[in-house]
């Protein structure tokens, strides 16, 4: 009985001490981590708008070129010429896919897609995040939806080739893009 009590007391005390240490480290690093995340977002938005920048003038370029438009629940990053970009979020085949898409001022044509996070099969669906694949979306149109095809070759403005061997990832990505773009455009008053 005494042994059990000693064990419990020891574990509880150790737990409290270590939690306090972690709490201290966390409150020290949290602002820096938040800042890093913010910079990552800014970098991605600029990438999606195909604006070149130096690491040192990232924030100046961002604040000069990008107008942040906030609605009730969405954030848009607009250029002066009417191009917009926004973050998309949704599920792929195995896990969440997150990224940024930019549209030209007609709010239909894709300027660029950047994928920040994905958990698809490496070498198959995972190739989704590669520039080489994503650039095949450049210039395609949501009219009103886009098709990602694995059964035949894509033809025309609204079709893109899927990734071979990753039909389900391609399908999930298609659904995700169409839903998110429609939702964001509704919110933008389009």
């Amino acid at each position, binding site marked *: 009985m005494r042994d059990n009590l000693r064990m419990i007391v020891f574990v509880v005390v150790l737990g409290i001490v270590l939690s306090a240490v972690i709490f201290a*480290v966390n409150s020290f*690093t949290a602002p820096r*981590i938040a800042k890093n995340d913010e910079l990552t977002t800014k970098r991605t938005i600029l990438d999606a708008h195909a604006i070149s920048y130096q690491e040192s003038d990232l924030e100046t370029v961002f604040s000069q070129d990008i107008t942040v438009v906030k609605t009730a629940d969405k954030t848009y990053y607009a250029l002066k010429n009417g191009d917009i970009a926004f973050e998309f979020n949704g599920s792929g085949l195995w896990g969440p896919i997150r990224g940024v898409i930019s549209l030209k001022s007609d709010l239909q044509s894709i300027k660029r897609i950047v994928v920040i996070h994905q958990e698809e099969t490496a070498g198959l669906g995972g190739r989704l995040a590669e520039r080489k694949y994503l650039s095949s979306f450049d210039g395609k149109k949501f009219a009103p939806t886009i098709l990602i095809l694995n059964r035949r070759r894509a033809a025309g403005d609204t079709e893109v080739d899927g990734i071979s061997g990753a039909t389900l990832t391609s399908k999930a990505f298609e659904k995700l893009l169409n839903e998110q773009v429609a939702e964001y455009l509704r919110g933008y008053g389009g």
Partner: protein
Amino acid sequence: MSNVGLQLKRLTYTRSYRILRSNLWKDHPVSCGVLGMCLTLGVSNKVANAIAIGIGFTFVLVVTAATISALRNLIPKRARVIIYMIVISSFVIIVDRFLKAFFPGIAEALGPYIGLIITSCILMGRLEEFSMKNNVFSSMLDALASGVAFGYTLLILSVIREFFGFGTILDIKVTPAWWTNWVVIGMAPGAFFVLSIYLWVTRTLAKVDPQKLGHLHG
């Protein structure tokens, strides 16, 4: 002169020397114990990742060894594994936050592998085998030696894999223009090829007899 030689010779009989020698070469955690495989296979594709994990791992190992060793007479025997886990995971979280705050690029590249330090058998092995039975100084020395042993193995593997798989070292191009990357070496299967060759070479050099590793090989 012979006096210095004698001093050096005497040094090789000290306990510290034996701790260093066994961890760094004779009872190497990777070559001999085949421990820490998850990290060894997972993060040995780029030199930068290997260095970051090597340093983070050594740090966690040294501080947990010191903590466990200092508390070794207080730790209730039945709860010791849980206590190892609590201490290890706390320090791993600290390393994780630190990397995210100051080296976000490396933190992103390492992803889940930082958290996987928690489950590394090298840590559990050293704590159970050594820190629970020895004083703080010896435990820290042992942990440092184990960490460095693990780190240099990662470094060797990653230099080989990054050179052949990506044609770079620390992301600097070192191969001539005509070089074609052996992509497979940089990917997961390549880790197995390179590691098995590494084990073969180091085990032969260290004269490890698999038959005598009874506790490890049945």
